[in-house]
């Protein structure tokens, strides 16, 4: 079993009120030096069977047609390496 991660972020030209709210709060928390914050969604898909090119293509379609609305959002699809999976599980 492998994990495929789909990250969905608002397109750069689109307002991201959530990211802005976080960014505006940072100075109050004593954090300086972060010039921009964007907030998006992360989907972790556990895929049965091998994550070959065909499987990735299907997940790409899924992301494009369902997980993201490409009118306002961009997405990326990545296979998570086992090492990362292990680390993330920490």
């Amino acid at each position, binding site marked *: 079993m492998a994990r495929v991660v789909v990250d969905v972020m*608002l397109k750069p*030209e*689109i*307002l991201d*009120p959530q990211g802005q*709210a976080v960014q*505006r709060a940072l100075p109050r928390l004593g954090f300086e030096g972060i010039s921009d914050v964007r907030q998006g969604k992360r989907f972790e898909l556990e895929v049965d069977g091998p994550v070959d090119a065909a499987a990735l293509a299907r997940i790409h379609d899924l992301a494009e047609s369902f997980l993201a609305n490409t009118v*306002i959002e961009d997405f990326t699809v990545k296979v998570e390496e086992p090492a990362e999976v292990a680390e993330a599980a920490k």
Partner: protein
Amino acid sequence: MSRTPLDTVEHAAATPDVELPWAELGLKKDEYERVVEILGRRPTGAELAMYSVMWSEHCSYKSSKVHLRQFGEKAPESDAMLVGIGENAGVVDVGQGYAVTFKVESHNHPSYVEPYQGAATGVGGIVRDIIAMGARPVAVVDPLRFGAADHPDTKRVLPGVVAGIGGYGNCLGLPNIGGEVVFDSCYQGNPLVNAGAIGVMRHEDIHLAKASGAGNKVVLYGARTGGDGIGGASILASETFDDAKPSKRPAVQVGDPFQEKLLIECTLEAFEEKLVVGIQDLGAAGLSCATSELASNGSGGMRVTLDDVPLRDSTLSPEEILMSESQERMCAVVEPEKVDRFLEICEKWDVIATVIGEVTDGDRLEIYWHGGKIVDVDPRTVAHEGPVYERPYARPEWQDALQADDANKLPRPASSEELRDQVLKLVGSPNQASKKWITSQYDHFVQGNTVLAQPEDSGMIRIDEETGLGVAIATDGNGRYAKLDPYHGAQLALAEAYRNVATTGAKPLAVSDCLNFGSPEDPAVMWQFAEAVRGLADACQQLGTPVTGGNVSLYNQTGEAAIHPTPVVAVLGVIDDVARRTPVAFQEEGQLIYLLGDTREEFGGSAWSQVVHDHLGGLPPAVDLERERLLAEILISASRDGMIDSAHDLSDGGLVQAVVESALLGGKGARLVVPDGLDAFTFLFSESAGRAIVAVPRSEEVRFNDMCGARGLPATRIGVVDGAAVEVQGEFTLTLEELRTVHEETIPALLA
């Protein structure tokens, strides 16, 4: 679009042969030529941007203007009207020094493309119109129409739209107190997302969108300007989808309701301290609209330095800044000595505010960028003197055949059994079923002044805690009626909203409307539009309720197929003490149920014809506005004198639908007797207008009857509130449980 060198006014004058992308921006050749004629030279890129968005169908009303004039010409004398058509929203006097502003607008196209954000920003836009009048927004309503309930795309669009309306309105703290949800395959691909808002202020707080007083400062405040939604609403809503050119690809914005909430609070605080001379919200056409309208309505001119506009994206060209439809922005005109205090209030609410220009004593709107003058226009030519089309219109040739296809001739139920089955089918049909799954996603309680909300006949808000003064609002539209006869269909929409307001005990005062139609370039659609406007204007004149403003949404069609003509009408009413409001629910067993009005065989466009026969043909119910007025007077008097404990207007679905709703809401059944002279089927399903049912305590029966008799309103005793079932004597009995199941489970089963 940015070119080097900067396309200044000077540069434009010196380079008459430069080709500008006027066609891509949606202008017609003759329109572009008019711009050149007005200016006496070619426009600069920035000027072209302004003219193209402001002359779009959405902003200029170029196809509808010639018809809309009737609302003014036929406006009834009304003492209530304080501000009429032409401002951000109309304002009505409701007594005790209070004024109320309300308006309905469409966000149809964006909501199809991105249901959540499209609908959310629709709420945002209408609320800014209300604040711009000087009012505190107190409630929203949302008349919605979708394709067939079981169509897969409805399942994509509806939940997003509802979540968006809720997400934005709930976050602003505005109770949602009414609306509609209608399914019809004619809206497939063209859902109608209309949103309305009401605001309250004291008379002296009314503000107008005008810039006057040379030297006064123009302050832009709210969100930074970004590259999203450039030409979005204006151009998107002015075209059908299938001819969208690449440059006009859907441009949808993301709303930030939190920012808007801050905008409300800081604007109201600035009003309270009398810091604002004129104000305008930024909606469609953004800064182009705000600056040209403020300048055009005022006495002087205006000079703006575009470099001072706070940007989210530093690479934006001046044309883009002028066209951007970034949400949650407002523009105020403030006297110089009050600017500091104004900015301080913005700062208190963490709202970015910047002086971007000032009022001049000339009559030009001048805009500067990087030191060069890129706009120099007479603002009236941008804002108010756009093209006006007398589009050809013609009654479609299919209209006769449609009207001849008489619904009164459809096969009727042959047995009591069949009658009973059809009642169940009606009550559980998507259009008649409970909309609780939807309306429970809206906050009804916030602000603590909600007297009535869904599923009452109208929403009602208390506006004065001491005296109990309140306002009521209902929105209605029936595209099926309007398709059969647009003139009377529009009147029926008004009549229904008017009746809904009166049913709750409030006196109808004024009207706003949202006119949703197909492409004005189709003469048949244009005819529907012309007829609907004429019908509405005539009816408003007769009912004494002026149109205070509204919105037109055209191009709601895919290819050749236009939506049903769908005029949606909002009626605002006033009630001097909300304590005497009349609810829909049956209150007490033993009370007598009266049917007010006349019932005829009228099935054209009815819910019965749709649900049982999937049929649309014939004529809609007859309109009798004098009767509507009388019915309203009786309902209001009865509420004032405590003669009735509940009331429900009859509309689509007819009497049986109304009785079932009152019974389910009150948890009390009804025993009905078919009155003499009517057959059970007509009694239950006819959609004759001008009717309502009321529940009268026995102690009031004589008094109530006397009142109706004296005034000449037919009142027929049809039954009694009783038991745990709806029984039609000699026909059938349906338990409340059975009814509740079909009524409440339909929508969740389709959508959840």
